[in-house]
């Protein structure tokens, strides 16, 4: 290798984390700034007491308890009295088992009942009048969003150009170090996907923001280029998976666009997921110690990855049963069956992900610490029982915490990841210059170590931070989303991604046992790639801007109220 080439590659190595940092900062700044401020959508006026209650959310609990979104200090109002909902068709009120009932225009209502401006809603002894917020309501929405999100194309195409630059930098650096142009076709195809998806999203779907997708594409693209430099054939599979993932992502956003549709399909998804896992147990192939693969011709699929999406569907689709805790049973059964089957497949990592996601969903829905503690106690008991009867499972994790003592046995992968990460330093040894690539599972389980060694710790940390950033973003948009379903789904999908990333990264770095789960978007694995895009769609869907262009809102009563 010539000195000039080496020097260029060195500069590229230093430039990589800088480029990535700029992309990340631009994306998250755009994601923050495009957000609607918390203005009232409508207001409820208690004309008798001259109190005005702003209605801030798409789904609002109404009751006497302090935690209610609309808190009415009237002892005749039940603690959890009713839910005020906004749907495509307009506003609705649902009685959630109150003592005194809900009256609209002095008529007692049950179930979901439409309400319109000027309607009088009576709960207990309080009568509230539904009014528009200060400005005419149907333009409030548009006005609040429009000023902060002008046609974003310019800023977003800047981000995309930076990502393209990053991919070029990585590809050229890889070519200098490996002396082979094998990653060039991948870089070309990826860039086409990047811009194609962007054009489709902005032009066809008229989405206003593309930052979330841009970040996920940056991770996927980096993963694919690293993969292509080590194994170009594998990387083509990964490119195909990325395309399928993007299509799946778009489909998911369309599918969950109407919460009622999700509710209708819930049971079917439930059944299909359980059947899929059952099928895996029956005809599944054992690859590398876990029997969680199904071979369909030349393609091997990991159904457990897709069942993660079903988990969020089943768990989060509560709709307007916002306050009821009774319907947790079916969900607990689902999670129990899935975790049981993961244990039979020896896929302990996914079992753990399911359990933690279950805890998150259960807590988000019930707010009950007791449930969470009870579930953890049950799980600890279960693990103790399993380890008593099947002690060999513990042997798989014996190296945890003292990998150096098992440096040539169970701790081999982690020790090598440590050594290689330390050798790589902050800026890495250069793509393809590492040795971790020769260690088993380097591009799936150990990918964090591989990136750390070849691209440096800073880059590796930033990529991990992006996944953490998804979660923070998901929480940020959750209270502004159109339904509790979106909020819960986004937070738990984000939590799942973060927890999975934690299991992967901390598995390699010996903070947690090595369980062999993938690092979202970065690890090699088609099923994982598709599933990660699926999970990301929940976060995207929670941002009310996603659906803002399709919003025929009716706030004035129709001519014929029965229609």
């Amino acid at each position, binding site marked *: 290798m010539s000195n000039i080439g080496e020097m260029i590659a060195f500069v590229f190595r230093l430039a990589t984390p800088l480029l990535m940092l700029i992309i990340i900062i631009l994306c998250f700044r755009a994601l923050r700034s495009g957000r609607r401020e918390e203005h009232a959508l409508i207001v409820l006026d208690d004309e008798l007491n001259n109190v005005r209650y702003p209605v801030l959310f798409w789904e609002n609990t109404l009751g006497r308890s302090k935690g209610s979104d609309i808190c009415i200090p009237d002892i005749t109002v039940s603690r959890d009295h009713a839910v005020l909902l906004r749907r495509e068709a307009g506003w609705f009120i649902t009685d959630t088992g109150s003592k005194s009932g809900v009256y609209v225009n002095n008529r007692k209502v049950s179930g979901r009942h439409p309400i319109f401006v000027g309607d009088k809603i009576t709960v207990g002894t309080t009568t509230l009048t539904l009014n528009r917020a200060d400005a005419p309501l149907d333009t409030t929405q548009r006005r609040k969003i429009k000023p902060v999100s002008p046609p974003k194309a310019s800023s977003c195409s800047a981000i995309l150009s930076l990502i393209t630059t990053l991919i070029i930098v990585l590809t050229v650096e890889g070519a200098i170090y490996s002396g082979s142009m094998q990653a060039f076709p991948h870089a070309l195809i990826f860039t086409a996907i990047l811009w194609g998806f962007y054009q489709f999203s902005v032009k066809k779907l008229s989405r206003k923001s593309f930052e979330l997708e841009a970040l996920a594409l940056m991770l996927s693209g980096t993963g694919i280029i690293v993969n292509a430099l080590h194994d170009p054939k594998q990387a083509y599979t990964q490119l195909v998976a990325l395309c399928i993932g993007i299509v799946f992502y778009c489909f998911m956003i369309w599918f969950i666009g109407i919460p009622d549709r999700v509710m209708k399909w819930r049971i079917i998804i439930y059944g299909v997921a359980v059947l899929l896992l059952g099928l895996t147990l029956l005809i599944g192939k054992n690859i590398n110690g876990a029997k969680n693969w199904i071979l369909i011709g030349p393609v091997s699929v990991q159904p457990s990855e897709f069942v993660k999406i079903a988990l969020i569907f089943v768990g989060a689709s509560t709709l307007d049963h916002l306050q009821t805790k009774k319907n947790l049973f079916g969900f607990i059964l689902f999670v129990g069956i899935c975790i049981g089957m993961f244990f039979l497949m020896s896929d302990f990592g996914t079992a753990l992900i399911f359990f933690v996601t279950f805890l998150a969903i259960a807590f*988000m829905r019930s707010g009950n610490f007791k449930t969470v503690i009870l579930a953890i106690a049950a799980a600890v008991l279960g693990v103790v029982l399993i380890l008593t009867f099947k002690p060999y499972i513990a042997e798989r994790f014996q190296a945890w915490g003292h990998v150096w003592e098992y440096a040539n046995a169970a701790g081999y992968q982690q020790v090598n990841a440590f050594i290689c990460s330390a*050798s790589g330093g902050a*800026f890495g040894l250069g793509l393809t210059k590492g040795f971790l690539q020769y260690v088993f599972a380097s591009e799936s389980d150990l990918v964090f170590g591989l990136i750390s060694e070849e691209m440096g710790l800073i880059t590796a940390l930033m990529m*991990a931070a992006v996944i953490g950033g998804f*979660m923070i973003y998901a*929480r940020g948009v959750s209270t502004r989303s159109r339904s509790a379903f979106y909020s819960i789904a986004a937070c738990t999908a984000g939590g799942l991604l973060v927890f999975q*990333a934690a299991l992967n990264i*901390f598995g390699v770095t010996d903070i947690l046992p090595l369980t062999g789960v993938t690092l979202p978007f970065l690890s090699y694995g088609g099923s994982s790639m598709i599933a990660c895009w699926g999970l990301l769609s929940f976060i995207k869907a929670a941002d009310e801007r996603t659906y803002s262009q399709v919003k025929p809102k009716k706030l004035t009563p129709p001519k014929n109220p029965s229609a």
Partner: protein
Amino acid sequence: MKKIGSRSVMILILTLAFFAGLVYHTVNLTLHTKEWVASPMNRHLPEHDQLEYAGKIIDRNGVILAQSINEKRYYNEDEETRMACLHIVGDNSVNIATAIQTVYRSSLTSFEFNGDFLFGLGLPTMMDNKNEIDIIGNDVTLTIDSRIQKAALKALGSYKGAVFIYNYKTGEIICMVSTPTYDPQNVPYDIETNDKYDGAYLNRALSASYPPGSTFKIVTAAAAVSEIPDISKSAFDCRGTDTIGGKPVTCFQHTPHGHIDLTEALAKSCNIFFAKLSVALGKDKMTSYAEQMGFNHDITFDGIVTADSVYKVDDASENELAWSGVGQYTVLETPVNMAMISAAVANGGTPVMPYFIQSMGPITKNTTTLGTPMMEKSVADQLRDMMEYTASTYNLNDTFRVCGKTGTAEISDNGDVAHAWFTGFLLSEDCPYAFSIILEQAENGSSEAVEAMNQILASASTGAGAEPALP
């Protein structure tokens, strides 16, 4: 929604924990950079023939047995010392499987990383000052005394054989010599072809097992004392030859020993007495006691695995069982095992595990560990008295109180000269040594083994062997 907003804080905390974990990893990585980069498992480090940079190998008195100067390996300047210590130190190749330079080749060097975490090993070659990685040698200090080694080599003379001496209280190996040997500095050109060097790569003290002959009577005696009540009071008339299982069992040169008890039988090495004992004890008990004393499994110390001693009588006839009780039939024993049995007798029934690496690099390995018990303390005490009485009949220097037993091991039925054995220990506070020696096919039988050990022990008492180990 307000509730969901506040509940999602829990997941936010999970995310913060994730970031905290990343910070922890970063701190951990930066703190351990030097150590992890310098790990011998790191394949980014330069390759080299490790002996070029290997550390010194030093005996207990500070005598340098091997060292590397200017990327070349030098052994002790004295040829006899080099030859005497060959099987411990090893040579430039890896021919001697149990030698330090074979077993611990990679531990004799280590790396030092002078760079920092910022660039790791990732600086381009023209910016790298090339001194990021240093190769440093790790010195090894042994418990071996090279002067006693030399005396042992001399005492073995032209015989093939082995000497093994270790401190039965601490486990330090003082002397371990195997012949034939050669000079590692000037490896003979005809080493592969000349019969003189047949088996020179083998450390016979650890890796060879021989018929133990009469030295095995210690094992039979231990079993008998443990199992047969009043054995010390029973006596027997030896006529020099007897028939057991329809075939003859004879004493040495068919000499009748007359009316003898167990103590006399051991001292006079009466075959018939011990043959009868082993038949009386039976296959199961004999096997069980032999296995307790180290037969049928290997011994591991300092990462070195020795050959197995063998006692297998499953298919033996009664006559063959009788012969096994005097260390013939198919019985085999390693010199190190034999010394450990003597050490067990000396030490109240439980031997101390031998070792010869005192320290390696920064690590001090000086640890005295007990082996598995071989016999009851009362049995050991009784055997000690019997072995002291036995040794009093040998022609030994009176500097020490010696307990011991010789052996003459027949190696074939067609009159080949037998191997000569002597094993035992010193009743001495200053020199608590257990020993074994074998001279293959010694012309004058076991008295030659006694004489050789006598010379070695004399050098141990006058030489540096009595000095305490280096700190």
